């Protein structure tokens, strides 16, 4: 079958950044056939998105520049189109969906308008566009679509937003849909739904899908062929089953090895001292409406949660967005007061602590947040960031030793001494998270709360960070509260797991219990939804060959 839809050859793109030139992709070639799903697999910085952007003409110049290559599509070279030709391609022929649908939908226009616009831009009459918008939204599974046409992106959930993006993309029945990390920010169950939807649509329309992702599970379950990229170059390509079954390139092997969910379950040791406990922790938010703002409803973010954390153990907390994981984290950290119930630190109720006791608790309870970019002050150097806890807890470490200790910590988390003088923006996401961990370690706390601390990282980096956390745990007898939505990760790392749903703990047990003998349907659903990194021919997402 030689039905090539798009052929990219020898594509090179570079970005100028001041005096430095970053070769994002160099000499990349691949092709995609009609109706197939091609996955470009790579970690952040591998250049996997850049080739898609080049095809769509989305590379800003400056700073970007396409230095070589061709992208043949229907007899045209997509890399050298004028504006009018470009507009005839983008939308009707090739459409694109993105990772973060909230950011990629215009916040100030109703979604109906935005979907209709993708048609009206290409000559569809307003009435026709309106009618078709409704069909599309219903097709992608927006319930009560007619009533929601005038709603705005922020009024939808993440999965619904991605559905809207998809509706927008398929409006003109494009030949090729480029999906750039379409499910990365979504919960596993929602991810499964979106992948289902894409699969169905592909079957219906016969469009080809170019799937750009870092998630090996998604690739394994959905793609026909895969292109593996590293540092701007293609390192391996081929049929998914062949590549995953017998990776030829060491990097591919390394990636596959890093996929979590394969190690042995950790067995909880004899319970040490109880450091933290939560009893009946609840957090309600009144939702008011009407003229005088009487509360008409209560949002139960946390609804009677009990938990214990012992010295040296890792407590995993899993659940989908909205399950109350983050509220629990904020409550534990003392950032919000629980509406009822209490949290005790070494038997002392946190709510009743004196300022000095609280201060002392804070020294021993550190946190690593999900987004390392946001949690590091962009104005401070790494040295300042890491030393800040010492500046706050005066007397913990004499100023003379700060420098040495900073270097020590940096090396501890796999960074180098010279990194101390740089600023956060000069690091990659994984490195930033290491800095955040180094900061959390600075005070040698007893507990570190990891709130989705590795979710945003690439698998290989994830694996490294988890390894680091493990190593530190043994080194310093640390306890972790490990909040994540990614089940395989929790499976590998946690001793005990809480499964949360709608503010409540629905199931609790050791990692082995949860994964091997789940009692609750919800837990089972969660486990079933996460894609397995082993390609199977019967995958419900793969195209029929």
């Amino acid at each position, binding site marked *: 079958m030689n039905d090539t839809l798009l052929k990219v050859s020898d594509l090179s793109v570079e970005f*100028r*950044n*001041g*005096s*430095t*030139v*970053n*070769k994002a992709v160099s000499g990349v070639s691949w092709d995609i056939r009609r109706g197939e799903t091609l996955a470009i697999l790579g970690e*952040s*910085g*591998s250049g996997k998105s850049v080739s898609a952007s080049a095809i769509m003409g989305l590379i800003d110049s400056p700073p970007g520049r396409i230095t070589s290559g061709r992208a043949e599509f229907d007899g045209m070279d997509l890399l050298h189109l004028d504006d009018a030709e470009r507009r005839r391609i983008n939308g009707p022929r090739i459409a694109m969906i993105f990772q973060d649908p909230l950011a990629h939908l215009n916040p100030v226009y109703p979604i109906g308008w935005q979907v209709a616009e993708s048609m009206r831009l290409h000559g569809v009459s307003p009435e026709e566009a309106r009618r078709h918008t409704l069909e599309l939204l219903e097709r992608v599974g927006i319930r009560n679509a007619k009533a929601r046409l005038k709603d705005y992106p922020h009024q939808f959930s993440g999965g619904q937003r991605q559905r809207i993006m998809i509706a927008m993309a398929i409006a003109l029945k494009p030949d090729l849909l480029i999906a750039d990390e379409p499910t990365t920010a979504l919960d596993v169950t929602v991810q499964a739904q979106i992948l289902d939807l894409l699969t169905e649509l592909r079957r219906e329309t016969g469009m080809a899908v170019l799937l750009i992702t870092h998630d090996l599970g998604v690739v394994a379950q959905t793609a026909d062929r895969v292109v593996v990229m590293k*540092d701007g170059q293609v390192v391996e390509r081929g049929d998914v089953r062949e590549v995953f079954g017998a990776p030829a390139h060491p990097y591919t092997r390394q990636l596959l090895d890093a996929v979590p969910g394969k190690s042995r379950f950790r067995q909880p040791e004899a319970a040490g001292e109880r450091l933290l406990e939560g009893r009946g922790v609840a957090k309600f938010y009144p939702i008011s409406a009407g003229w005088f703002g009487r509360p008409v409803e209560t949002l139960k973010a946390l609804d009677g949660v009990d938990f214990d954390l012992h010295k040296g153990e890792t407590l995993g907390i899993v659940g989908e967005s909205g399950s109350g994981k983050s509220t629990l984290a904020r409550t534990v*950290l*003392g*950032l919000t007061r629980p509406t009822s119930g209490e949290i005790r630190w070494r038997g002392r109720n946190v709510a009743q602590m004196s300022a000095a006791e*609280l*201060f002392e608790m*804070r*020294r021993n*309870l*550190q*946190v690593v*947040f999900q*987004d390392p970019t*946001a*949690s*590091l*002050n*962009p*104005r*401070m*150097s790494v040295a300042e960031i890491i030393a*800040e*806890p010492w*500046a*706050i*807890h005066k007397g913990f470490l004499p100023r003379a030793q700060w420098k040495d200790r900073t270097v020590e910590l940096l090396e501890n988390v796999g960074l180098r001494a*010279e990194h101390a*003088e*740089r*600023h*956060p*923006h*000069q*690091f*990659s996401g994984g*490195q930033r998270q290491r800095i*955040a961990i180094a*900061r959390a370690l600075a*005070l040698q706390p007893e507990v570190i709360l990891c709130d989705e601390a590795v979710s945003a990282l690439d698998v290989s980096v994830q694996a490294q960070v988890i390894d680091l956390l493990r190593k530190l745990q043994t080194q310093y007898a640390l306890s972790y509260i490990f909040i994540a939505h990614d089940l395989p990760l929790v499976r590998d790392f946690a001793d005990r797991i809480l499964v949360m749903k709608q503010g409540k703990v629905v199931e609790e047990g050791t990692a082995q219990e949860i994964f091997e003998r789940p009692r609750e349907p919800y837990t089972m659903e969660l486990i079933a939804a996460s894609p397995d990194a082993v390609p199977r021919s019967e995958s419900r997402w793969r195209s029929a060959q």
Partner: protein
Amino acid sequence: MSDMTLESQHSQPIAQRRIGLVFMLRQDPFAFAAVVVLVLFALLAVLGPTLLGDIATSMNLRARNAPPFELERGFWYLLGADALGRPILARVILATRTTLLIAGAAVLLSMVVGSVLGLIAGYRGGFLGDAILRLTDIVMSFPSLLLALVVLYVFDPAITNVIIVLAITRVPIYLRTVRAEVMEIRSRMFVTSARVTGAGPVRLIGKHILPMVFPTIVTIMTLDFAFVMLAEASLSFLGLGVQAPNVTWGVMVAEGRNYLSSAWWLSFWPGLAIALVTMSLNLVSNWVRMVIDPVQRWRLEGKGEK
């Protein structure tokens, strides 16, 4: 950003970076020119009055409203003469010190007061925040002329009072902007991180919030500078500001008002001085914003690339 970018970034030690400031200034020709202009005016402010002696204040009615660029009266008459035949060039120089003193002090004072109150209102929020915000509403609605008259009646017409009146009327601008920004920054993750580590309000504000608000404050300050310089003139006319023989650019511009149709140069040159300082401050503030923002700094470290 990939690791590769990181490797190619500059990573010179701190000592080198200090020297780098001048280098970075040279990288931005607009900012460099602006700094030169500002240094020049600063020198004039410090030295001008001493160097001039009474050139700027002695009248010469035969040179009344003498047009600019006629050299037969001598160098000082290059920019023409005012209604009393005093050389405008000399008067612009003479006025530099008082002008910059009053405008600088008023801008600084309003900035400090407004920012502090804005920080409190934004950081504390709640009732206190609302109350502070309402206070600014009152100040903004209170007629500034009436305020000036009250000060004039209750106190002496000292320069400090001009500064206070000007500062009071400008406080709300800073307060409102700072409050809005603080409320946004307060909820950012790195502030939460520091809070969780046990940082108190002083540290949170001083180390994390203020540096983020600072660029905005600087921008307002530079735009306000021109405004204050002109507003000062109207107070002087009430008898609240500087009195002859002392003079400011604002007063010169305002005095020239009566001669706009016959002798434009009376108000043009001091107006140009105001515009020059404003524009230079603006360019420098843009540059400063870039220097203190590590994310932007590379623009000034590169080889002239922008």
